[in-house]
């Protein structure tokens, strides 16, 4: 069981790194020949940096578009950030002080993740036009994440697992010295589902994480008159008749 899950985690990590790198490489290499910032857009580089930061931290455009989706989506993502950081305690020895500080918070962060995901799932099921545009993979992602949160929270709140053993297992993965995983069905499920999630990441809409940074409608400066936008294969176009 330990060997199986260790192999699966390594495989998932490898495919994640290769797959996401390939995508990011593609995004970076393909030109954005059109000047298409969603206006009103910043007219300076610094302004764009601020806009992207607001987008990444607060999901600004989603907030403007739909408050309920924003609320549940943001709850989920903010909770996930805290939970991921808190999980660093399993991979570091000694545990960094600020990671240790997060430990008591991670419980509530996990609950926030669950609430956000349930809200988003309810929206997909109950709002007719959102249901209309939902594909099976949209539900798959929500159910996968919900299962990960459910198994994780169960171990955190009710049926505690052998976290000393978990830490030895996790450190073993990092140090390439495989250790036995404590035999616990919930723990196995938790890790198995996470491996699955990481595995599908480069082939799914989860790519919105790196994709956001490359969105030309967000990261472009609104200065088409001040600077001619001329890039890539389209560079020579329109120079003579423009």
């Amino acid at each position, binding site marked *: 069981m330990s060997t199986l899950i260790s192999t699966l985690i390594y495989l998932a990590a490898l495919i994640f790194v290769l797959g996401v790198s390939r995508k990011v490489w593609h995004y970076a290499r393909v030109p954005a020949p*059109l000047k298409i910032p969603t206006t009103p857009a910043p007219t300076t580089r610094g302004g764009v940096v601020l806009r992207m930061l607001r987008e990444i931290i607060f999901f600004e455009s989603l907030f403007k578009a739909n408050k309920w989706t924003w609320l549940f989506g943001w709850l989920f993502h903010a909770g996930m950030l805290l939970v991921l950081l808190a999980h660093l305690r399993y991979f570091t020895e000694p545990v960094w002080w600020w990671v240790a500080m997060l430990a008591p918070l991670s419980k509530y962060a996990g609950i926030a993740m669950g609430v956000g995901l349930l809200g988003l799932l309810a929206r997909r099921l109950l709002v007719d*036009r959102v249901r*209309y545009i939902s594909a099976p993979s949209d539900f798959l992602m929500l159910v996968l994440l919900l299962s990960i949160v459910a198994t994780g929270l169960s171990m955190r709140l009710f049926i505690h697992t052998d976290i000393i053993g978990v830490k030895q297992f996790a450190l073993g993965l990092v140090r390439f010295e495989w250790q036995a995983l404590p035999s616990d069905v919930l723990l196995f499920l938790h890790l198995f589902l996470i491996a699955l999630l990481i595995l599908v990441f480069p082939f799914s809409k989860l790519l*919105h994480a790196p994709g956001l940074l490359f969105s030309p409608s967000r990261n472009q400066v609104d200065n088409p008159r001040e600077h001619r936008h001329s890039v890539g294969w389209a560079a020579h176009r329109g120079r003579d008749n423009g």
Partner: protein
Amino acid sequence: MADKKKFEVPVAHDLLETPDVAEGVMAHSQPYIAKPEIQQTVGFPGELVDNWQEVAVAKLGELTGKYRGLQVYLDSCVKCGACTDSRATGSVAQGLPPPLHVCG
């Protein structure tokens, strides 16, 4: 200012009403197709080709290699549905493809 024309002006309410999803509401909507000879001069075959699905997919593949935005939006759309609410466009409610830049 003779002959004032009478227009039927729709009444605007305070809150926008989002119509329920109904299949086929835009079925009557068609593109305005140019004459075959005009299409040929801009590089289109003029008539629907038999393997139009393959041609379309191949074209999409070509375009994702030319426009970063298209590839990023196709990969990144989480189908949050915010564009179906977007007052600026409301295009999904009208049965059109969503304007991906609303979320991207």
